[in-house]
């Protein structure tokens, strides 16, 4: 239980740091810490495969892309100064209350008798063959047999999200070769100057 409380504190502090840090790169580093703590929580719950995947997929790939984007877009070290006053107080308070309620429920649930058969004797001990809770075999069977439909629906939702991002952020005007586009903008500029002149 003691490891859980240490990890819980690390989780909450790093999560708060992630959203309050003024420099984007600090948010990334604290999120990295957060993911590590989350993986440790999975280990405590004997979900070994999930813990390792959390590190490989989220810390190793997705968060790395964040660093990449920050390095490319925000190569200066300067912190973000704008927008600090705009934190909406009421929704933030509601969210905090909801989080506390959730944690309280989780603690209450933790005192209930365990419903999960814990078969492994050591952390990281049960990954491998065999259908132990948290093992690769168990995970794969759940994902591709008993939970196939939710899994596919999640994939579809993610796909919709990706299309949505392209719609929101992407440039949907038909493709025009660079040279012609430059000509067009030059002509537009000339016309604008002429109009201003009149």
């Amino acid at each position, binding site marked *: 239980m003691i490891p859980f409380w240490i990890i819980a504190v690390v989780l909450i502090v790093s999560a708060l740091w992630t959203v309050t840090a003024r420099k984007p790169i*600090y948010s990334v580093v604290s999120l*990295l810490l957060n993911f590590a703590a989350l993986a440790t929580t999975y280990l405590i719950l004997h979900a070994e495969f999930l813990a390792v995947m959390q590190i490989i997929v989220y*810390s190793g790939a997705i968060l*790395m*892309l964040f660093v990449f984007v920050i390095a490319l877009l925000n190569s200066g070290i300067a912190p973000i100064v704008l927008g600090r006053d705009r934190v909406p107080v009421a929704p933030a308070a509601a969210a905090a209350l909801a989080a506390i309620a959730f944690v309280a429920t989780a603690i209450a649930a933790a005192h209930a008798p365990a419903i999960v058969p814990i078969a492994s004797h050591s952390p990281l*001990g049960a990954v*491998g063959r065999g259908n132990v809770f948290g093992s690769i075999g168990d995970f794969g069977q759940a994902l591709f047999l008993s939970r196939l439909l939710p899994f596919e629906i999640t994939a579809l939702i993610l796909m919709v999200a990706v299309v949505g991002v392209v719609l929101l952020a992407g440039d949907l005007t038909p493709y025009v070769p660079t040279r012609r586009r430059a000509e067009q903008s030059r002509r537009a500029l000339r016309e604008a100057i002429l109009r201003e002149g009149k």
Partner: protein
Amino acid sequence: MLIVLVKSAVLLAVVVTTFAYAMLFERKILGWMQLRPGPNRVGPWGLLQPAADAAKLILKEDLTPKTADPLIYRLAPFISLLTAFAVYAIIPFGANGDGSPWAIGNVNAGILFLMAISSIGVYGISLGGWASGSKFPLLGAVRGTAQMISYELSMSLSFVGVLMLAGTTSLTGIVNAQERVWFLIPQALGFIIYVITAVAETNRTPFDLVEAETELVGGFHTEYSGLRFGSFFIAEYVNMLTISCIATLLFLGGWNAPFGLTLLPGIGWFVLKVGAFMFFYMWLRATLPRFRYDRLMTFGWKVLLPLATLNLVATAAWVALH
């Protein structure tokens, strides 16, 4: 608990010594291949050169550029060093008679654990290069991040072939599965992909675009000096050693003796195989010129990744049919 600490201390000493002499070995080999003697002034045959280098690095001034982000700048070398050494907690070097491995932690998810830790290692380079607050390190870091993410994909796919043949993720289990035939033979394509991606993952010639001296001064570690630079340097060589250990465990039969030649103990064969792989690494450095960046990316995504996928599908079909 105490036993684990003692084991860790011994292993740390072994890895650091190996690093020091791997560096000397590399300089000697480069000298030999370029028809010059290599380091030969400090001690007999230059054997004390690593100690001299270490003393130099420790005594050097530790500089932090004005434009740097102080916290991240100091954190980055530690991330590199930590992830480089952390993998040795689970790498088995041999086995007892009863099959229990010579390792600090016998982890059943061994290979996944290795992948997880090495995927964190990239942060040292990308954060360090970014936090230096100057152009050359930033360019090196961005290049390095893109390169390491791209090649990690093919590398993981080359692991999966071995995992399917062995039917386990435990490193000891994988070595035991190679008792008769090394996976080098059924996974020849996987091995070639692994070797190429491994060189790219450790940013060594011909994939050393991260620190391309001729164009980026020193790449991501341009601004680092003294022991902070030393940390990156140690991490690079320790990663080389790790990559050689993984190649030995996954493809070269680990501590299994080849052709039933059991005149050496298992650990002896293991060290020999790792040494041969390290030599191959250095040989590459003395032989090959650096890749151009766009070719590196084209090669990674359009050649290695499809080949690795093909290898995966073929292995899956073979395993399913047997």
